[in-house]
């Protein structure tokens, strides 16, 4: 395919992402304007002196017309200034960057659990449509899809942690088990330090939150992949595959699954961003550090700039994740390549 069409697609997709980020920033600016009370006061906290409030008013340009304030806001964002938290007294971006590896760790493990459960289940279910496994797994998907994420987290924590004492209920490591912090993700830190005891401990700590976060998303993958497989299995070219004498196993694994798997991966990619968003419902339940827990605490502390800074941060992560997924799809799926690049 032509280099030009690839370049044009990349530029267009990048432009789309930037436009989305601009839209997100404008939304958050509107939210700041919606906040009741004095914005300068809110930026420095309830205990600030009149001088500090006045300094914040100058810094934020609050005496200027709204359009100037908007442009100032955008220029601060470009420089990575999301304001200062009134509960940690640190720049919001620094706070978020510090805990992001931990969220990334949780989301990665949740994605692993998600795919490890949903993909094999969907393949087995689609293979014997209407069979016992198909029926029971579809029933499970309905139930799991209706459970509130945070409630499932509390229940897993209570049953598996408190009552049966199988797994630790909170935090990243047991006391004294932590490997030296290098990345901020407990499992990766343990791996880098080649500390196997710490790794096992960190894995045990991440098990429950990862399962709780994965549950809802795995029902989506299960449904989508199962439906897609059934669609492929009843399509015309499958008749040809069967006619040439391929075994049922080969029909399924060699022909049906590769046909459905790229769309499933694309769905998993968009789920990645949604999982980062859902971390706000999970991390605080398990007393884990992360952007979700940070946002949760910011709401409780009425730390408005930390809340809205988290909205921008998570929104940006989601946009960038979606961009990466689109580009990966282009590499992996020839059908998408043909549709997007026009050849």
């Amino acid at each position, binding site marked *: 395919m032509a280099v030009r069409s690839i370049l044009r697609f990349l530029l267009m997709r990048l432009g789309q992402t930037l436009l989305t980020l601009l839209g997100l920033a404008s939304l958050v600016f509107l939210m700041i304007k919606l906040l009741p009370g004095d914005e300068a006061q809110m930026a420095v906290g309830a205990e600030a002196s009149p001088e500090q409030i006045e300094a914040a008013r100058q810094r934020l340009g609050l005496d200027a017309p709204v359009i100037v304030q908007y442009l100032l806001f955008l220029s601060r964002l470009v420089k990575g200034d999301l304001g200062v938290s009134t509960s940690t007294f640190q720049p919001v971006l620094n706070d978020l960057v510090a805990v992001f590896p931990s969220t990334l760790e949780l989301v990665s493990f949740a994605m692993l659990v998600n795919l490890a459960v949903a993909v094999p289940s969907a393949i087995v279910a689609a293979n014997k449509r209407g069979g016992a496994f198909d029926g029971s797994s579809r029933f499970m998907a309905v139930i799991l899809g209706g459970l*509130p994420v945070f409630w499932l987290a509390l229940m897993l924590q209570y049953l598996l942690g408190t009552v049966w004492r199988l797994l630790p209920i909170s935090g990243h490591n047991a006391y004294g088990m932590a490997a030296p912090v290098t990345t901020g993700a407990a499992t990766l830190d343990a791996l880098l330090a080649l500390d196997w005891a710490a790794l096992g401990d960190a894995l045990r700590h991440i098990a429950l939150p990862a399962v709780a976060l994965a549950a809802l998303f795995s029902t989506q993958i299960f449904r989508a992949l199962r439906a897609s497989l059934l669609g492929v299995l009843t399509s015309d070219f499958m008749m040809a595959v069967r006619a040439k004498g391929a075994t049922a196993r080969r029909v399924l694994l060699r022909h049906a699954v590769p046909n459905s798997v790229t769309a499933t991966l694309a769905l998993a990619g968009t789920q990645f961003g949604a999982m980062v968003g859902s971390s706000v419902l999970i991390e605080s339940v398990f007393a884990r550090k992360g952007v979700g827990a940070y946002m949760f605490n910011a*709401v409780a502390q009425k730390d408005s700039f930390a809340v809205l800074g988290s909205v921008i941060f998570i929104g940006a992560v989601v*946009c960038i994740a979606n961009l990466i997924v689109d580009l990966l799809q282009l590499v992996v799926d020839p059908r998408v390549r043909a549709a997007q690049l026009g050849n």
Partner: protein
Amino acid sequence: MAVTSRPKATRALALSPLESFVLVLLLLLGAMVAVGPALAPDTVYTSDILNALQPPSAEHWLGTDDQGRDVFWRVVVGARATLLSALLVVTLYSMIGVAVATIAAAGPRWLDETLMRITDLGMALPGMIVALGLAAALGASLQSAIIAMSLTGWPITARILRAVIRQTSEAQFVSGAQVLGVSKWRLMTRHVLPNSLDVLIVKWAGDVSTTVLVLAGLSFIGVGAQPPSAEWGAMIAAGRSYVATAWWTVVAPGVAVAVTSIAFGLLGDIIQVRNDPSLREV
């Protein structure tokens, strides 16, 4: 062969076991919303600290919470807050979605383009996180959560409806009306739109199912319904610290949310299959 098959009308009305089950659940929820608050004792909002965190008993079927209030009756009363709010949210954002899709379809091309780009933007952002920020900015309350979710929920509806309107517009009866000199606006609102809304009828129940979950989530985070409200998400948040000693304070409202969400999810599936029998599973 027509002789042996049952008359069509009876077959359409006959309910499968699953459909009957969902119907019973929905009737139960409806009853809780309609008469729950009237039946409940007036102590569902008053503290009785001496009776706090009592386990389930004949007197308190689902025990009492940290304030000594009866959990069973709070769950019954809470149906109104959770379910009516969710229905309201879905209604409001569906209306916004319909408005956006109709204006986009009937208006000039640049307006269509602009509205659809805004819709794309809304779909590219994490809905719950934006709603969370908006609700926090508006001041944490159930009203804020409802407004925030209504303002952030519409893009998917608008996107789907716009596509359906495009299809309907190509139907012959539309070009017929056009030839008769019907104005563009009237054509859209009187002919195209009414014939495109089927898609929303199929969609709304599933939407309620997800909205119930997100709404409970927002209350759990603390930007939705506030204590002492009996809203289910807020009840879970309040019971959270006592789960190890008084599991019923968290289990009861959680099961209520789950059952509601599952019932509407199944209702959505049923409507979809009845609307398009080719989707029927063996």
